[in-house]
């Protein structure tokens, strides 16, 4: 396997063998290790010394189900700490098929405002990947929905694309890296942490992959791999949440709107209530019914990337039956819906489409709009004006640039105290005062507020992987720590985190995941090794953050949550600081 370095100082590339110490890494393990080893923690995230690292997971590119994920990592422009943000796309499999363990983008061109594309293909004769650089000028400053088809036209329908939108070009703290979905839409995102701007700061607009002729992933022990893949697939097919026509395939991730609302933990109108009266109108059930009404038939969801059997990605349609956008995820639906007091799926879908078009993270965008609403820029609940603000971000107007800076930046610009961020990244769709464990994850994660870093919602709300009272802080530090460590491992395998719903309840599925990795790497890992290996990744991420000046004092939820009781349960965030400190203190 290769480490491929692309140097943007003078657009040269270098291939090297994977060092021994990196052999068993993948995905987040790879990106976080390389960022830890090579990026000076105090560098400016947009300067020449930051590096943007892409890595497919350990089993990405193989026949393992639901495993076409890529991790993107760097020093974050939003948080100033380490970042890993992963996405599902054929782009991930292509990277793996060309045996690229890590693609490291380094340096920075002298000339400002000039953008390039890196085209990575398989060189059959030489038996290794090769890179060519082409100018990206015709594609800058434009809507990604307009640009993606042109890039496909230039490189052929079999290409896979990763790139930044205008949000990255403008330098926003809110900017993601967009990848193609299976329908060639620019709709799969390494959304969080401002990585789109890190990419743009390197003068890199697109990385286009084509893996034709590539050898595919080497498998050390096929028998072990096949056995593991079979066990995991069986678990995914059996579990009610992940099976075909199960919860995710039918209603998508937005099926969570109603249950979070019922639990009083759906952040509403900038985290001022845990219940939204319009929840049912934007819920996954409403999306399913709405599509059925507009198309005259039931539509089940599709896969974002090759080989996914869960298939949770939905499509929303306009009243005339034409496609509006894909995909309306729970987080986007909540951020741009309930959290802004907006109950129109059409308005939410339009904002999702615009975020994809501009290269914005939908979570950060929605939480930013809500802070702007709190500041009185526009009223809560006004969908049309909210769409207008997203358009301002796309145009790069002065107001758009303030909003594009992110939730915390906008809060500072308008003097707002109720700003739901940790380490400058906004909280996702679960209210810490109503779900104490997820607050511990938000507070302590190396990523800033991030639900995927340690999804205690499983046992706290969904009854998956156990059952605990969401309002009690009891035992939650250990719960969050365990989830954070296991997640760091799953993020390294290349599997979508949603396999966790099945494998936390079905032990043979968990074993299957470990055997798949053993099959590819020739290792001998058992189930209990997952949290150990994940823990090592967390330690590196934590060490990077500490060296970057992000220590314990930043492992806290915002102050207002400690004294403003949240309806309907009227709870404050009462997890003591020493409990928060024990999460990493006892790792």
């Amino acid at each position: 396997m290769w480490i491929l370095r692309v140097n943007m100082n003078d657009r040269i590339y270098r291939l090297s063998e994977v060092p021994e110490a990196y052999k068993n890494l993948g995905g987040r393990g790879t990106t976080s290790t390389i960022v830890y080893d090579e990026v000076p923690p105090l560098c400016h995230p947009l300067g020449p010394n930051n590096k943007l690292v892409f890595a497919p997971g350990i089993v990405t590119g193989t026949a393992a189900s639901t495993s076409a994920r890529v991790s993107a990592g760097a020093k974050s422009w939003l948080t100033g700490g380490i970042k890993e943000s992963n996405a599902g796309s054929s782009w991930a499999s292509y990277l793996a098929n060309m045996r690229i363990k890590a693609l490291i983008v380094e340096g920075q061109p002298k000339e400002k405002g000039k953008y390039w594309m890196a085209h990575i293909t398989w060189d059959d004769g030489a038996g290794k990947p090769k890179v060519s650089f082409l100018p990206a000028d015709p594609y800058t400053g434009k809507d990604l929905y307009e640009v993606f088809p042109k890039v496909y036209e230039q490189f052929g329908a079999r290409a896979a694309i990763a790139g930044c939108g205008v949000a990255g070009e403008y330098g926003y703290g809110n900017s993601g890296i967009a990848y193609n979905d299976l329908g060639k839409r620019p709709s799969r995102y390494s959304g969080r942490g401002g990585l789109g701007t890190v990419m743009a700061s390197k003068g890199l607009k697109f990385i286009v992959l084509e893996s034709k002729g590539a050898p595919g992933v080497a498998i050390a022990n096929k028998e072990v791999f096949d056995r593991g893949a079979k066990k995991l697939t069986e678990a995914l097919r059996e579990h009610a949440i992940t099976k075909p026509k199960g919860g995710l395939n039918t209603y998508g991730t937005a099926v969570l709107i109603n249950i979070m609302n019922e639990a009083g933990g759906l952040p509403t109108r900038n985290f001022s209530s845990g219940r939204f009266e319009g929840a049912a109108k934007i819920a996954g059930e409403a999306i399913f019914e709405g599509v059925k009404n507009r198309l005259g038939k039931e539509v089940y969801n599709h896969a974002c990337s090759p080989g996914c059997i869960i298939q949770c990605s939905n499509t929303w349609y306009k009243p005339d039956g034409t496609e509006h956008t894909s995909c309306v995820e729970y987080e986007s639906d909540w951020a741009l819906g309930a959290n802004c007091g907006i109950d129109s799926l059409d308005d939410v879908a339009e904002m999702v489409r615009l975020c994809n078009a501009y290269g914005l993270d939908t979570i950060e965008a929605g939480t930013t709009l809500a802070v702007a609403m709190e500041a009185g820029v526009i009223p809560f609940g006004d969908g049309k004006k909210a769409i207008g603000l997203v358009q301002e971000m796309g145009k790069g107007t002065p107001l758009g640039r303030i909003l594009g800076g992110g939730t915390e930046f906008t809060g500072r610009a308008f003097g707002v105290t109720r700003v739901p961020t940790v380490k400058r990244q906004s909280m996702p769709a679960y209210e810490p005062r109503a779900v104490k464990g997820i607050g511990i994850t938000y507070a302590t994660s190396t990523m800033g507020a991030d639900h995927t870093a340690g999804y205690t919602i499983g046992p706290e709300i969904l009854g998956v992987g156990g059952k605990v009272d969401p309002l009690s802080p009891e035992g939650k530090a250990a719960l969050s720590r365990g989830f954070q460590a296991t997640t760091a491992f799953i993020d390294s395998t290349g599997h979508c985190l949603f396999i966790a719903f099945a494998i936390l309840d079905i032990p043979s599925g968990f074993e299957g995941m470990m055997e798949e990795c053993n099959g590819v790497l020739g290792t001998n890992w058992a189930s209990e090794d997952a949290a150990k290996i994940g823990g090592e990744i967390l330690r590196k991420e934590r060490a990077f953050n500490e060296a970057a000046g992000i220590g314990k004092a930043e492992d806290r939820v915002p102050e207002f949550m400690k004294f403003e009781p949240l309806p309907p349960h009227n709870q404050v965030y009462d997890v003591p600081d020493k409990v928060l400190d024990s999460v990493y203190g006892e790792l």
Partner: protein
Amino acid sequence: MRISVKLFATLGRHVPGAGSGTPFETEVPDGATVADLVNQLKLPREEVKVTFVNGRTRPLDWLLHPEDEVGIFPPIGGG
């Protein structure tokens, strides 16, 4: 006693007229538990995963009181 019930996701299909998440009122005997309500509504037990009473997760043997609001969910997940 009268209580209010909401059935979510696929569970709405088991009770005619109960759309997903639309509250409806029903009569249960005094001393009824959440499990009694599930049986009375003829919901398949294996499809009942999380039960709420007044916004708190409660077990199936939880005693109901007049005007309680009950929410019943099948297994669901997302993120």
